[in-house]
């Protein structure tokens, strides 16, 4: 029951700050920061418990008990949840700390703290859920928090619009997600993970009628759930809210729109892998969506000039990577990338925030340059983050990204294509990351005098989280290192995905009887599970780095490539070297063009103006949505209101009845002459009619 405190502590601080706002004001962090750190501490404890083979699953209370429908609020902590817990609470703690400095003096200081605490609670409720409805609860709540935080500076029109957009696009995704949940309930009759995952296999051949065609129910479920992931993880078609969300303060960009909330989609797909695994079609859709998003985001990121936008598009692109990984069944790789990405992307955002903070809230990289001398800590941490993102050995991104690429390589014909996309994206990623980096810290000094005079290194509360994350960015990747020692990420996460679908042993309303695989795995290798979160990868123990990979595939229907043995190992190294070279060339290109002021980019842009404008304008996707959805909807609504409602229904039909009555009255008025004989005449007429009718019929 101690685990209940993990989400409840942030909730408590939210409530306290919310209720006693008046007395909190600028002291809000005094409650929030300790609470979230305590939550982090508990998460570490929980992680160790899980690693020690004590996963938990229990219900707190029944939420909506109606007949057979008995969803609960419950807590389930398995390996997947535990690693998410760590990520969420760690990043959240650091962001809380960072916020103390970053938001200092802001009018909504207390409000901001309240909301990020609420967000932390919601995100924890999401990942710790043991059923779909609580997942949905967290899912929507994080959306709300994201909304409230984007609109933090509500007086800016852009913030308001961005928040609106974020909420609506998320809601569209949530609609799909909700429908997916409905279908799960309708198919299985339960929303509890354990029950659903255990029973979904029995329905693998069920079909349903979709507008006249028979489709597989499980595919339908998977696709609908994935729509939710598309919305939340800003995948292609529901992606355009994420860059706009950068209107919010930078800490939340780091926390919500990089490290945690946007990864909920990947988390959900991983969590629901027993469903996805059953449907090749769904997996293919997932993989292709992810790959396309990765490419799409990267192409846009190439030309953006707003420092946060670049990072945002890069986030989108990386999320695409993770989704792609899920789509080929490489959940472990996806989750691992999620974790490493959470760390280094949060770092990048926070560092970018530090830059912005230091340079008088300027976000346009064209107006920066030579910032290195003002902020050494930021410089170094950002460098580490950029290296991690670019995928340079030995930083985190290298391991996780290459694992995805490797899994893709092994995933059949389609996988090869995905691999190619992945490599191209990797090149772009390296390029645009260092484009920003060089333009900010080197290049031509385009700062105004005023900016320059205020430029300074950020205070401790800002730099400490940066440093912590930078260290993390350096080491966290080694957890999934495929070369030396055991691949800890696979050892730890693998069992979740490895477990045969029909045997997921989560029992309803009872303590979870998780297979003790994790503990055994660690025990066999003589490993100290308690040290798992710490960066220690150089354990020289011999272990097959792919021990878990086939397992991950075993369940996967899409990634059916068989692989194993020495040949693959060589191949893997070759591919690693290749992608390293690709990333390196990307960095070199950025160096060549942006380290010193250079005409080359402008020339290139001029010669491919169409492409350049397209990328700069996000391939006109906003304009397209505006023209296809927004404006027609508004126009249609207005038209419908004016014509259908006000005129047809109200005036013609409803008031029409009244007017007809009135006209009738006006006509009948003339029969009211006041003369007795007329009345008598009408009576006679009546007699005539009655008698006539009587005789006729």
């Amino acid at each position, binding site marked *: 029951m101690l685990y209940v405190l993990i989400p409840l502590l942030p909730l408590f601080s939210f409530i306290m700050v919310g209720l006693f706002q008046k007395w909190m004001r600028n002291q809000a962090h005094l409650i929030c920061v300790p609470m979230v750190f305590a939550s982090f501490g508990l998460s570490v404890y929980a992680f160790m418990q899980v690693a020690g083979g004590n996963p938990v699953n229990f219900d707190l209370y029944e939420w909506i008990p109606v007949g057979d429908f008995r969803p609960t609020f419950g807590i389930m902590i398995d390996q997947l949840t535990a690693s998410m817990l760590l990520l969420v609470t760690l990043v959240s703690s650091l962001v809380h700390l960072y916020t103390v400095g970053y938001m200092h003096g802001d009018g909504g200081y207390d409000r901001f703290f309240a909301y990020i605490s609420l967000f932390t609670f919601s995100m924890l409720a999401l990942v710790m859920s043991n059923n779909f409805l609580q997942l949905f609860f967290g899912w929507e709540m994080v959306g709300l928090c994201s909304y409230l935080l984007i609109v933090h500076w509500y007086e800016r029109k852009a913030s308001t619009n961005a928040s609106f957009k974020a909420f609506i696009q998320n809601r569209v995704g949530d609609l799909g997600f909700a429908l997916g949940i409905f279908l799960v309930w309708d198919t299985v009759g339960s929303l509890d993970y354990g029950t659903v995952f255990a029973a979904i296999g029995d329905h693998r051949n069920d079909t349903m009628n979709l507008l006249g065609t028979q489709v597989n129910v499980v595919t339908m479920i998977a696709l609908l759930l994935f729509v939710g992931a598309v919305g939340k993880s800003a995948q292609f078609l529901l992606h355009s809210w994420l860059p706009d969300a950068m209107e919010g303060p930078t800490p939340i960009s780091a926390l919500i729109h990089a490290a945690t909330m946007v990864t909920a989609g990947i988390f959900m797909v991983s969590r629901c892998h027993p469903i996805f695994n059953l449907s090749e079609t769904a997996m293919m859709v997932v993989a292709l969506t992810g790959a396309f998003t990765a490419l799409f985001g990267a192409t846009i990121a190439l030309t953006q000039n707003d420092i946060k936008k670049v990072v945002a598009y890069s986030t989108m692109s990386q999320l695409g990577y993770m989704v792609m990984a899920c789509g080929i069944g490489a959940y472990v790789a996806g989750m691992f990338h999620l974790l490493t990405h959470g760390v280094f992307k949060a770092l990048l955002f926070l560092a970018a925030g530090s830059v912005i903070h230091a340079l008088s809230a300027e976000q346009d990289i064209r107006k920066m340059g030579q910032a290195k001398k003002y902020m050494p800590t930021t410089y170094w941490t950002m460098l580490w983050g950029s290296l991690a993102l670019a995928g340079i050995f030995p930083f985190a991104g290298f391991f996780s990204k290459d694992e995805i690429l490797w899994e893709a390589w092994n995933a059949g014909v389609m996988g090869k294509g995905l691999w190619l996309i992945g490599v191209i994206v990797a090149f772009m990623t390296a390029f645009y990351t260092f484009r920003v980096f060089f333009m900010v810290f080197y290049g031509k000094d385009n700062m105004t005098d005023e900016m320059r005079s205020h430029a300074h290194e950020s205070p401790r509360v800002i730099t400490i989280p940066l440093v912590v994350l930078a260290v993390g960015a350096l080491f966290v990747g080694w957890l999934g290192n495929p070369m030396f020692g055991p691949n800890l990420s696979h050892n730890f996460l693998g069992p979740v995905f490895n477990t045969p679908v029909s045997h997921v042993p989560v029992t309803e309303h009872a303590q979870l009887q998780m297979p003790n695989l994790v503990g055994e795995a660690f025990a066999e290798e003589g490993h100290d599970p308690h040290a798992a979160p710490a960066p220690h990868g150089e354990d020289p123990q011999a272990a097959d780095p792919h021990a878990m990979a086939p397992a991950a595939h075993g369940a996967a229907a899409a990634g059916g490539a068989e692989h194993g043995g020495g040949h693959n190992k060589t191949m893997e190294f070759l591919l690693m070297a290749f992608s390293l070279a690709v990333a390196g060339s990307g960095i070199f290109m950025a160096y060549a063009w942006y380290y010193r002021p250079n005409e080359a980019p402008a020339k290139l842009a001029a010669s491919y103006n169409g492409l350049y404008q397209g990328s700069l304008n996000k391939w006109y996707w906003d304009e397209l949505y505006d023209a296809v959805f927004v404006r027609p909807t508004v126009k249609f609504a207005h038209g419908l209101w004016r014509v259908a409602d006000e005129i047809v229904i109200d005036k013609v039909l409803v008031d029409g009845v009244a007017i007809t009555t009135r006209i009738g009255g006006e006509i009948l008025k003339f029969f009211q002459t006041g003369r007795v*004989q007329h009345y008598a*005449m009408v009576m*006679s*007429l009546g*007699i*005539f009619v009655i*008698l*006539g009718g009587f005789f006729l019929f």
Partner: protein
Amino acid sequence: MIEALFIYLATVCVICAVLTVSLRQPVYNVLALLTMFFHVAGLYVLLNAEFLAVVQIIVYAGAILVLYLFVLMLLNVRTQSRHLHRQWPFAVLILGSVTAMLVGALQDGTWGVASGEYTAAAIQEIGNTQAIGLRLYTDYLLPFEVASLVLLVAMIGAIVLTKKGLIDDHIKE
């Protein structure tokens, strides 16, 4: 014989009725009605209702129609250039057809069964007047009293309505 008498009486009744409603001068109307009342009395005699025949003449001819004549003289109403209402053709047409329908319908009706209680012979034996009186003052005593009350009310009403200054002022206001 009786049939001939009936035909005569009925024909005169109808003609007088038509005259009553159609003649221009009110006095002629009254006189036509008077004629009709006499013939109705004749019909009553045909139907063995001698008492009623007498009452018909005394009350209707003697009292009611005389009252009309008094009023006519009292008011001295100008004869109007147009004595018929505009809707008269419709009235004649519609009611004419109604009458036609009724006449058609009533041709061969059988209504009720003779009770045999007051056969012509029985009435003759005790006398028409006594027969009515017996009925009126026994079974119909209460209606009879009510009728007298109606007359009383009518009398008071007539007085109140015609008395100058009682109603007129109100109406004028």
